[in-house]
């Protein structure tokens, strides 16, 4: 399998001065991308899938999310913010949703759009795609960039199963670009479109989109990063009702279970899975064709879906309950999607076939790989099997693997070292 050589961008940064080498991050990384070497955490860019687990777990602020600075919006004449659906769950219920949306205008944007505007259109698109691809089962959702990268890294044989269409916020970006150019008589380069996102993965995806044919967004701001500024504006705004349109009915995209329910219908059986460990377990079953009875699987790296994103401020369960309430108590807002349908028909939302980022191979040559595996197993029986991570590798198996790949030595095992010292005493 061909593996492309390009450098991978990640929206996280290590702050070595803050790192204590505690190995908490090493243990939570789903792709074993992190090692502590010489007392400091290091991330292998080929393995990282931007799930954000390490950002959440680090108590020493040694792994921080990268986010664009809000000033960059001023480079554009017309500034648009697109809200990810989880935004709506971040505010206490005394703050009306339209007001929290208006706050972004106060922050300097000329227009605020919502991912929720294209939800109905997305459900139609997904159903149509599933029906058009009867030979591939199950179809896997492509909305979560962390999941897409996880499949590229750990389950490359499932790449053809991914829904090869742009994510909702990118579809909306395409649509708004053309609409604003036509309505306001602006050039493409005068319009800045920015996403307000719940996670590291979406910031990465804006900077290095997988499979995109065209220029999409100009930057991404995390909810966590702008939250303080928004609260400031809200205080000044005094919760005054305004006439801004909102699309509560479409907020379902933030909740993986509800999205699956929406796609599910007479001829389409959908399953919803969230949380990195669950996603990995399910993908392994899909690989063995144990889940072929499903037509569509909604996969989200975070608990409950994007409400669980690591750069949100509210607890995922509380945020979910708020969003559910908003959906229940709101009226349907009609969105004219005829233009979107045209663009979809013309194949405008299709993406380039996704490529593997395979890290699994011990060696290109199977004979060599078996020899390395043999050596790996020989080392493994010498190691204590405690999986304590004190060596800086996530498990004893990973250390053995690091040793055969010349990235570590058996002396890195602290437990063995101590045993030897005791014997000598």
């Amino acid at each position, binding site marked *: 399998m061909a593996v492309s050589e390009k450098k991978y961008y990640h929206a996280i940064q290590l702050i070595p001065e803050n790192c204590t080498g505690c190995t908490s991050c090493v243990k939570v990384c789903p792709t074993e991308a992190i090692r502590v070497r010489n007392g400091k955490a290091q991330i292998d860019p080929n393995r990282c899938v931007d799930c954000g687990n390490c950002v959440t777990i680090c108590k020493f602020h040694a792994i921080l999310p990268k986010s664009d600075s809000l000033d960059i919006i001023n480079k554009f004449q017309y500034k648009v913010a697109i809200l990810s659906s989880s935004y709506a769950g971040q505010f206490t219920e005394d703050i009306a949703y339209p007001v929290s949306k208006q706050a972004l205008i106060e922050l300097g944007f000329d227009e605020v759009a919502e991912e929720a505007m294209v939800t109905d259109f997305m459900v139609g698109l997904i159903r149509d795609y599933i029906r058009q691809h009867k030979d591939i089962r199950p179809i896997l959702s492509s909305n979560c960039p962390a999941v897409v990268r996880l499949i590229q890294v750990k389950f490359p044989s499932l790449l053809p199963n991914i829904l090869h269409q742009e994510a909702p916020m990118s579809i909306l970006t395409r649509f708004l670009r053309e609409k604003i150019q036509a309505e306001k008589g602006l050039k493409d380069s005068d319009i800045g479109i920015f996403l307000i996102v719940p996670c590291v993965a979406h910031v990465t995806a804006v900077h290095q989109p997988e499979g995109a044919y065209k220029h999409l967004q100009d930057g991404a701001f995390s909810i966590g990063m702008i939250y303080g500024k928004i609260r400031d504006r809200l205080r000044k705004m005094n919760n005054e009702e305004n006439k801004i349109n909102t699309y509560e009915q479409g907020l379902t995209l933030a909740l993986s279970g509800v999205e699956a329910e929406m796609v599910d219908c007479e001829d389409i059986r959908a399953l919803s899975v969230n949380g990195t460990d669950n996603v990995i377990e399910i993908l*392994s079953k899909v690989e063995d064709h144990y889940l072929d009875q499903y037509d569509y699987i909604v996969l989200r790296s975070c608990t409950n879906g994007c409400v669980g994103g690591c750069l949100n401020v509210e607890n995922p369960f509380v945020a979910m309950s708020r969003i559910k309430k908003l959906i229940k108590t709101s009226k349907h807002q009609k969105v004219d999607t005829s233009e979107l349908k045209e663009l979809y028909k013309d194949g405008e939302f299709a993406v380039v076939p996704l490529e593997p980022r395979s890290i*699994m191979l011990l060696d290109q040559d*199977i004979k060599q790989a*078996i020899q390395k595996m*043999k050596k790996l197993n020989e080392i493994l029986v010498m190691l204590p099997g405690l999986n304590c991570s004190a060596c800086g590798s996530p498990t004893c198996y990973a250390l053995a693997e690091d040793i055969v790949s010349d990235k570590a030595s058996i002396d890195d095992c602290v437990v063995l070292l101590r045993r030897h010292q005791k014997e000598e005493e």
Partner: protein
Amino acid sequence: MAEYWNVNPDYEISAKSFLADKPEADVSLEFEIAVKDFVNAGKGSAEVKNTLKRLGVDPAILRRIAVASYEAEINVTAHSEGGKMYSYIYDDSVYIRFEDKGPGISNIEQAMVPGWSTADDLVREMGFGAGLGLPNIQKNSDLLHITSEYGSTTTLEIIIYYS
């Protein structure tokens, strides 16, 4: 003891000579399968799959190996008093042997018939017992050899080639 054989004609010669010699494998794995342990059953076959993934075995072949070994592993936990799974990994094939502690299969030919099952209520509750496991193992392996007898143990061996 009664025996059951099924060999893919393309591999008949190499598979038989393999069983006659049983050359030592550079990489081998062992996995204990406890009786009615549906939580852990499946981990042995998952381990084999993950090992083979690292060696670069083709995904379609990986799937055949995963399915065949998973079904055999579940059969040991569901229908026997427990046993062991031994996997031997070569550069062109994998040989996996399941040995259990009985009670054995009274009629192997019948057990091979799709839909035939003696699964008890617990096994059915766990979602197994359609009687499709053994036929599925046969479909996905290049060699299948079962040795068993009622009141004795069961040994199930499979070989799958990578190309």
